[in-house]
């Protein structure tokens, strides 16, 4: 297969967008990406868009069709990807495959979502639709509920008292909110730079043991990328970032994972696929954007991908190992928690944030120094239902 490079990125501000539709948000990000790459619309050969809940958020299905028309692209193949919160990571992976295969040289890929128009009760209902509609949803399972169940189980399986685990979880929130406070694109830009453990522990209880500050927010926003055949990348940019490996894994209802709820096989499988394809190991990754929908989710993800031993990732976060200067700077953009989580846009946003890091263009205070050579994206849709990984590097 051919090498594939990211040659342009675009990203709206994340937060509340009352005056733009998801199609308009995507178009804004896409035009930024095309300008960044120096690519014109008529050169784009296919469009791949992650969109999870447009049907409910705005009564808008077939979002890619309307993005294509709004952007004035040709009548090119335009496809929607739905994998809940991992929708646009899967879109990036498939877009990569179409270029790697030789079918296209230049494609536009990204994601878009408006969650806030739904309000909390409907958003909570629609997020839950990623769970089993008979075996899980009717019991009243919500998304925070999934990770509340995981947190208690994690505490019990690893013999880590829940009070200790909650302090470690609070450190995840503090760190990711600090990064988000420094990122102008983040929902919580300029806020929560110096959260304290007590503030996280004592914020409003959503579902025990998760408080509001253990949870990512509801968010509107979009992100987009231009992927190009590696051999043509330097026609457009001096700073191509190459896709070195991708992986995807699939789960099912929570009950089927049993004890593996604390080390989900779908994530282990997907991450290993990506590492194998890239010819790399966890120790080779220098910056990571992972799916911190809830604080405990970051701890589980760090372990399942092989970065820290089982039961030990919380301690590593507490010690600063996921900060600049530590073993693996993680969620330097603010992650889902600080930057925001517009479901269908999240994966594409994570890829944009790693590209920023590898170009040395991340915001002051968040840029890893020296500029990293290799970074990784981890995105999870549903209760470990869809896992997707992308490994990126400055050298192909």
């Amino acid at each position, binding site marked *: 297969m051919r090498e594939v490079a990211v040659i342009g990125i675009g990203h709206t501000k994340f937060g509340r967008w009352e005056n733009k539709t998801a199609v308009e948000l995507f178009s804004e990000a896409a035009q930024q990406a095309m300008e960044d790459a120096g690519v014109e619309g008529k050169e784009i050969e296919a469009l791949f868009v992650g969109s999870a809940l447009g049907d409910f958020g705005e009564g808008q299905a077939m979002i890619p069709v309307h993005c294509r028309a709004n952007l004035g692209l040709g009548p090119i193949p335009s496809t929607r990807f739905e994998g809940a919160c991992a929708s646009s990571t899967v879109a990036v992976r498939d877009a990569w495959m179409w270029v790697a295969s030789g079918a296209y040289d230049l494609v536009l890929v990204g994601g878009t979502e408006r969650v806030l128009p739904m309000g909390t009760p409907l958003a*909570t209902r629609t997020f839950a639709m990623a769970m089993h509609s008979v075996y899980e949803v*009717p*019991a*009243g399972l*919500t998304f925070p509920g999934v990770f509340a*169940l995981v947190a208690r189980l994690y505490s*019990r399986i690893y013999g880590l008292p*829940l009070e200790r685990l909650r302090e470690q979880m609070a450190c995840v929130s503090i760190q990711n909110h600090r990064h988000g406070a420094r990122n102008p694109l983040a929902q919580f830009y300029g806020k929560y730079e110096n959260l304290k453990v007590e503030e996280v522990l004592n914020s409003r209880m*959503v579902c025990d043991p998760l408080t509001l500050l253990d949870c990512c927010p509801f968010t509107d926003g979009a992100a987009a990328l231009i992927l190009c055949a590696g051999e043509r990348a330097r026609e457009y940019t001096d700073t191509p970032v190459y896709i070195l490996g991708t992986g995807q894994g699939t789960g099912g209802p929570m009950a089927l994972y049993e004890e593996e709820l604390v080390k989900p096989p779908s994530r282990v499988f997907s991450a290993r696929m990506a590492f194998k394809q890239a010819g790399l190991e966890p120790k080779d990754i220098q910056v990571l954007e992972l799916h911190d929908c809830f604080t405990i989710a970051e701890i589980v993800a760090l372990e399942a991908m092989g970065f820290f031993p089982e039961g030990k990732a919380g301690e590593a976060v507490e010690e600063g190992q996921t900060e600049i200067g530590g073993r693996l700077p993680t969620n330097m953009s603010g992650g889902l928690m600080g930057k925001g989580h517009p479901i269908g846009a999240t994966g594409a946003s994570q890829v944009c944030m790693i590209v920023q890091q590898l170009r040395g263009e991340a915001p002051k205070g968040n840029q890893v120094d020296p500029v990293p050579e290799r970074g990784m994206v981890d995105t999870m849709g549903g209760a470990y239902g869809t896992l997707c990984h992308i490994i990126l590097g400055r050298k192909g």
Partner: protein
Amino acid sequence: MRLSSKDYEEGLKKGKLLGLKCLDCGAVTCPPLATCRKCGSSRLEGTELSGRGELMTFTVIRVPPEGMEGPYAVCLVKTEEGPWVMGRLEVPEGAGQEILGRRVRLSGAHVWSDKYSAGERVSPVFSLE
């Protein structure tokens, strides 16, 4: 033998926890799937579980979805026969980590529907023994 999700729900309404036993490896699958959760075989026969098990984890949901009233507790139970089952949990207010590992039994059925649920849905309700 095919046991549908509807058959599972009808069983719950009669106080029964229904599942499938694998004719190849003997594992029990509950709630029902088209294949054995352990070996993937589709040679399965219907079986009734005891309804007893161990409380593995739970949470009290305080921000419910549209169409539900909180707070309520959701749990995962490891049944005596092996498979884990999700359901509601009847639990005293203020219960914490100390109740994990307690014995539980099937004590009822929670019936619910909304405009997206394709009709009535039924979930198991478990209580501490």
